[in-house]
C-alpha cells in the first residue's frame, strides 16, 4: 500500500472530501485505540445488555430447534404447495448479508479502495456469522436433519452416492467452500493483530491465548512479503467465489420450472441483491459500533457516505431486476408467468409486495441526496428499510411463486407459525451473540492495516 500512485491527488480535491482517518493519529494511537477496546477498556454496560438480549434469542433458537427435532417440520407453516417457507427465505437472506463482507474484504482490496480498511474486519466477521446462520436452515428443513451428512460424498454401507446434477448439491459445496474460505481469510487477516494483542496483553491468560492464535508471528519482512502475497491471492479467489455462491443459490430456483423462478436474470439479480443487503447490514452494525466504542476517527463520515453510494447503486441493479422480471413475463406471452406477476401485484400477498417496493425501491432513493448520506440517523433508517426489504424480496420470490403455480386445483396459502418466527429470531440471536463476543475479544478493526493509513507511514522518496 506504500508508494501508491493514487496519492498524487490534487490538493483541493483532498480538502473537499472528509478524511479517511481522524487527524493526529500515530502508529501508537491507532494501536492503542483499537486494542484497548479488547484489552483495557471496561466492558460498557450496553455490551452486557445487548449480549443478554442476544443470548436470550439464541436460547429461543435452541428451544425451537429442539422442538423441531422432536416433532419434525410439521411445526412450521410449510406444506404442499408451499414447501419452502421461512427456512429457505432465511437461508437466502442470511447468505446474502454475508456477501458484503467478502465484497469489502476482497473486491475492494483488489480495487485498492483504501476506505475498506477500517470496515473489512468486522464485515468479514459479519460474513462468517451470517453464513453460520444461513447454513443451519437447509439442514433444519431436511426433515431428518440428523442425516445431513448424507449430502456429502462419502463411501457408505448403503452403496449410494449424491446426485451431482442437482443444484442442491452444488449448494452444499458452494456454501461449505464459502464458509471455509471466509474463515481462513478472516483468520489470516487477524494473525498480525493477534500478535499485537499478545504483546500488549497484561494478563497471563490473554498472552497465552492470543499467543497461541498468533502462532509466533513476529512481523519479519520476509514473512510480510509472503503474507501479503497469500492475502492478495485469497482476495483474488474470494472474488469469483462470492459471485459463484449466490449464483448457485439462485440456481436452486432458476433451474426449477415454477413460474417466477425459471428466469435467466436470477444469478446477477441475486448477486446484486446480496451486496445490497450486505452493505445495509454493515451500516446497521457500523453505526452503533463506532458510536459505542468512540471509533468515529476510524469509521468516518466518508466511509458511511461511500457505503450509502454502494447501496444506492446495487439498489438500482435490484430495481432493474424487478422490472426485467415483469418485462420478461409479459414478453414471454406465457400465461403462467403473466399470472404470477399479476398475482404478486394484486393477489393475497400484495401487501408484502408493495411493502417490498417501499423498502427496496422507494426509500433508498433518498440516498441520492448528500444530506441523507451525511446524516447518521438517515443512513441508519435507510439501511433498516433495506434489511427488511431484502427479507420481503425472498418471501415474495419463494412464497408467491409456489402458492399458485400451474393448476388452480393445487393452489394454497402459506401462513408462518410461531416456530417459523422463533427460529428466525433465534438465528438473529445467534448472529448478534457471536458478534458481541467478537467485538469484546478480538480487534474489530484491522490494526496493522490502519497503521499503513497514518501520516507516519508515508515513505519518503530518497529512502527507496
Amino acid at each position: 500500500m506504500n508508494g501508491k500512485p493514487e496519492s498524487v491527488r490534487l490538493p483541493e480535491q483532498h480538502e473537499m472530501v472528509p478524511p479517511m482517518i481522524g487527524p493526529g493519529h500515530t502508529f501508537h494511537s491507532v494501536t492503542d485505540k483499537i486494542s484497548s477496546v479488547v484489552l483495557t477498556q471496561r466492558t460498557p454496560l450496553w455490551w452486557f445488555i445487548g449480549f443478554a438480549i442476544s443470548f436470550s434469542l439464541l436460547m429461543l433458537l435452541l428451544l425451537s430447534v429442539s422442538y423441531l427435532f422432536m416433532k419434525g417440520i410439521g411445526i412450521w407453516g410449510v406444506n404442499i404447495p408451499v414447501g419452502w417457507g421461512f427456512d429457505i427465505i432465511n437461508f437466502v437472506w442470511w447468505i446474502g448479508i454475508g456477501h458484503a463482507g467478502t465484497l469489502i474484504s476482497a473486491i475492494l482490496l483488489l480495487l485498492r479502495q483504501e476506505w475498506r480498511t477500517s470496515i473489512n474486519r468486522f464485515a468479514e466477521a459479519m460474513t462468517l456469522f451470517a453464513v453460520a446462520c444461513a447454513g443451519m436452515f437447509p439442514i433444519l428443513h431436511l426433515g431428518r436433519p440428523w442425516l445431513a451428512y448424507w449430502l456429502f460424498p462419502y463411501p457408505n454401507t448403503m452403496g449410494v452416492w449424491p446426485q451431482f446434477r442437482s443444484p442442491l448439491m452444488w449448494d452444499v459445496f458452494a456454501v461449505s467452500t464459502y464458509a471455509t474460505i471466509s474463515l481462513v481469510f478472516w483468520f489470516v487477516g487477524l494473525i498480525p493483530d493477534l500478535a499485537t494483542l499478545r504483546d500488549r496483553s497484561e494478563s497471563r491468560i490473554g498472552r497465552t491465548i492470543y499467543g497461541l492464535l498468533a502462532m509466533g508471528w513476529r512481523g519479519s519482512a520476509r514473512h510480510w512479503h509472503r503474507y501479503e502475497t497469500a492475502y492478495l491471492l485469497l482476495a483474488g479467489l474470494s472474488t469469483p467465489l462470492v459471485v459463484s455462491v449466490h449464483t448457485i443459490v439462485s440456481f436452486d430456483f432458476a433451474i426449477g420450472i415454477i413460474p417466477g423462478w425459471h428466469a435467466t436474470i436470477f444469478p446477477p439479480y441475486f448477486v446484486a441483491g446480496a451486496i445490497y443487503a450486505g452493505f445495509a447490514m454493515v451500516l446497521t452494525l457500523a453505526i452503533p459500533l463506532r458510536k459505542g466504542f468512540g471509533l468515529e476517527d476510524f469509521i468516518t463520515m466518508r466511509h458511511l457516505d461511500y457505503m450509502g453510494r454502494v447501496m444506492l447503486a446495487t439498489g438500482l441493479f435490484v430495481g432493474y431486476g424487478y422490472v426485467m422480471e415483469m418485462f420478461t413475463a409479459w414478453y414471454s406471452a406465457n400465461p403462467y408467468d403473466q399470472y404470477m406477476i399479476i398475482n404478486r401485484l394484486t393477489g393475497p400477498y400484495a401487501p408484502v409486495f408493495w411493502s417490498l417496493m417501499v423498502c427496496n425501491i422507494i426509500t433508498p432513493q433518498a440516498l441520492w441526496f448528500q444530506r441523507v448520506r451525511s446524516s447518521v440517523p438517515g443512513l441508519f433508517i435507510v439501511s433498516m428499510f433495506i434489511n427488511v426489504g431484502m427479507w420481503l424480496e425472498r418471501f415474495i420470490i419463494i412464497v408467491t411463486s409456489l402458492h399458485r403455480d400451474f393448476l388452480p386445483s393445487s393452489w394454497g396459502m402459506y401462513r408462518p407459525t410461531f416456530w417459523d418466527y422463533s427460529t428466525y429470531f433465534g438465528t438473529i440471536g445467534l448472529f448478534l451473540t457471536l458478534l458481541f463476543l467478537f467485538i469484546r475479544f478480538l480487534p474489530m478493526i484491522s490494526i496493522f492495516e490502519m497503521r499503513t493509513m497514518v501520516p507516519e507511514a508515508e515513505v519518503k522518496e530518497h529512502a527507496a
Partner: protein
Amino acid sequence: MTPRPPLHGLMAEFTGPNELISAVRKAREAGYTDLDAYSPYPIEEVSEQLEGHASRVPLITLIGGIIGGICGFGLQYWVSVIAYPVNIGGRPFNSWPAYIPITFETTVLFAGLSAVMGMLALNGLPMPYHPVFNVSRFARASQDRFFLCIEATDPKFDREDTYRFLERLVPRSVSEVDH
C-alpha cells in the same frame, strides 16, 4: 554441525519506516547478508531489499487449485459414471456441464487453503519459540517500532564491529539477541 554461536544476533530499533528502509539498505551495502527486518505492518521497500526472488506462494496456490479442480471433477465423474450411474431424464452419465459448479468450488477451496498453508509453511509458522522475543523491547515490533537484526550466522558478523555499525545508523537502541 558447527558450534552454535553465543548470540542469535544484534538488533537495532528504529522509530519510523524510513529509518528502517535506509538502515536495511546500508546494511546490505556494508555486505551483510543474514539479516531480517521486523515491522508492525508490511513495508514493500524493506521486503524488496531482503527478498531478491519472487515468493513461491503463487505457484503453490496454482498447484493446489489444479489439484482441487481435478479432484472435484474426478469425484463427480467417478460417482456418476462408474460407481453409481443413474439415468436422470435421459442425460448422459458424464453430463459434464452440470459438474462445473462443484469443480469450480473445489478448485477455489484447494487453491485458497494451499495459499494459506503454503504461506504459513514457508514462514515456518506456527513457531512457538524464536530468539528475537528474548529482547524485551521487541514486543513493540507488533505495535509501533521497527527492528533490524543482523544475525550471528552472517560471515561478516563480529560482535564489536557489527555493534558499532548498527550504532552508526542512529537507532533508538541496540540490543544483543540471546538464544
